[in-house]
């Protein structure tokens, strides 16, 4: 179980994340929504310890993750895979090498510097790529792949870590609707099949509604909504995004299939009001 206790992060005078306290049970898929600058990325980066909290603590299964240092910290980072908006792969290396980077924490530095990865790892990497449907691209350089394929390579790298938590920071924000759907379907499938905990930053409501078990809404660093996707009414959404009456969900939707249901959902919501 992941537990955040009054986690705060300041950058100079700005407070990016303000006393966030949430608990995520094992095996849940959580969507974090909010407009740009709401502190979603900062929150995820603190959980992975890419940045440190200014105040507060982060616990995972009883151990205080926010107090770890050195080798113990890197070991936590292995257990807590991160997927980025811009994929953050090494573009000039081939797909399999990038996936093998998921094993860096387990292997010796010298061996990895000379790309001496064990044969089983290479086979496992290709199996994971096959599971995500991109095994054909295994020997290609990452930079020759499309955005959606690159994001799936990033997911494969995350899976190679055999993580207990997967953090996804706007995984579909740089992708076209078609690829966005493939990537979100992949994440959901991993969640369903492996039972891994997934915390996913999203900036579109319909995606959060469609894929997540639970939605956390952030505004100016504060959690303003925490509940089931069904409870996320248009009024609540307007509050999260700080929008007025003119806010319409369907106009910001980037998903192909959910356009229609999201629209009908809104009409239902409006009928209820």
């Amino acid at each position, binding site marked *: 179980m992941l537990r955040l206790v009054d986690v705060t992060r300041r950058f100079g005078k700005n407070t990016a994340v303000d006393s966030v306290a949430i608990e995520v049970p094992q095996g849940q898929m959580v969507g974090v929504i909010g407009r740009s600058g709401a502190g979603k990325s900062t929150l995820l980066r603190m959980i992975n310890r890419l940045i440190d909290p200014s105040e507060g603590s982060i616990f995972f299964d009883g151990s205080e993750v926010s107090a770890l240092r050195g080798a113990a910290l890197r070991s936590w980072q292995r257990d807590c895979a991160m997927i980025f908006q811009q994929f953050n792969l090494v573009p000039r290396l081939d797909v*399999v090498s990038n996936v093998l980077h998921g094993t860096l924490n387990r292997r010796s530095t010298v061996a990895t510097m*000379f*790309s*001496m990865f064990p*044969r089983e790892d*290479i*086979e496992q990497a*290709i*199996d994971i790529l*096959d599971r995500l*449907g991109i*095994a*054909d691209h*295994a*020997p290609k350089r990452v930079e020759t792949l499309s955005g959606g394929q690159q994001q799936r390579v990033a997911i494969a790298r995350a899976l190679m870590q055999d993580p207990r938590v997967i953090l996804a920071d706007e995984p579909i924000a740089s992708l076209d609707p078609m690829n966005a759907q493939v990537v979100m379907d992949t994440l959901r499938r991993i969640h369903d099949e492996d039972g891994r905990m997934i915390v996913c930053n999203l900036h579109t409501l319909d995606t959060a509604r469609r894929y997540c078990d639970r939605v956390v809404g952030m505004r100016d660093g504060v959690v303003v909504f925490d509940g089931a996707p069904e409870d996320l009414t248009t009024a609540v959404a307007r509050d999260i995004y700080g929008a007025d009456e003119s806010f319409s969900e369907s106009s910001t939707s980037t998903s192909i299939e959910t356009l229609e249901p999201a629209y009908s959902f809104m009409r239902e919501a409006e009928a209820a009001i």
Partner: protein
Amino acid sequence: MTDVSLGGTRETDTIKAGYLADMRRKRMYSGILLVVFFVLLAAGFGLADSRNAGGFWDGLSRIFDFPAELIAEAIAKGAALPANLVRYVPAMIETINIAAVSTLLGAIAASVLSLLSTRGFARWPRLIGLFRRLMDVMRALPEIVIALVLIFVLGGGPVPAMISIAIHTAGALGKQFSEVNENADLKPVEGLASVGATWMQRMWLGVLPQVAPNYLSYALMRFEINVRASAILGFVGAGGIGEELRVAISWGTGRYDAAAAIFILLFLTIVAIDQLSSHFRHRLVGTH
């Protein structure tokens, strides 16, 4: 890699086999390269050692004898240090002046040459090769050779030093500037061409704002190198701190305290230039 089109376990096995074969080949190549590298390194060192006049291993223990003697004497005459520092300031300023003027002239020439030899910006695209070779020649000639020739013709003093450093600077900076130009965006230049601007206007208003921070950064680093270069040229009679250093550092003249003062001045100058250059670079980048 393989001809098989779509997924499935049999295809995955083919992919695995293909990738592993690739990997083995790459490993073999890097292994061979590594061995060749070490063999060459060992062989080269052996050759160099055998051609060394004194013998490398015998001399190794005496490497620090001279610096030790210099520092010991400088400490012994420590009281004279402030006076020595003050005494050599004018010579240091002369050296800095030579470096500054030659960097400025060299940088102006380098900007023009680099723009003329960058594809997309060049005024005469057919002459790109000519300007590139010109910069190669300027870069290839060592400052000290040009300075020696000029001193022979013009007599000793700061002017030959300045000209020779400026020539080398134009070549060296031109190369770095043209690399900066390669990364500059062509779109603003196209925009200015669309309003009917001349080549000069396009370069001045479209390219320079993009490349100025990097130009400045390279030019300031060059300035630092040129301070050292102009100090060296003092050794061949071009004036400045180098000339003083040559006199002071000659073995057995008993003026190591003066040599130490000159080293300290040089060090302080380089530190000052480094600080100044990072300050100006940040300000220039910040305003963009």
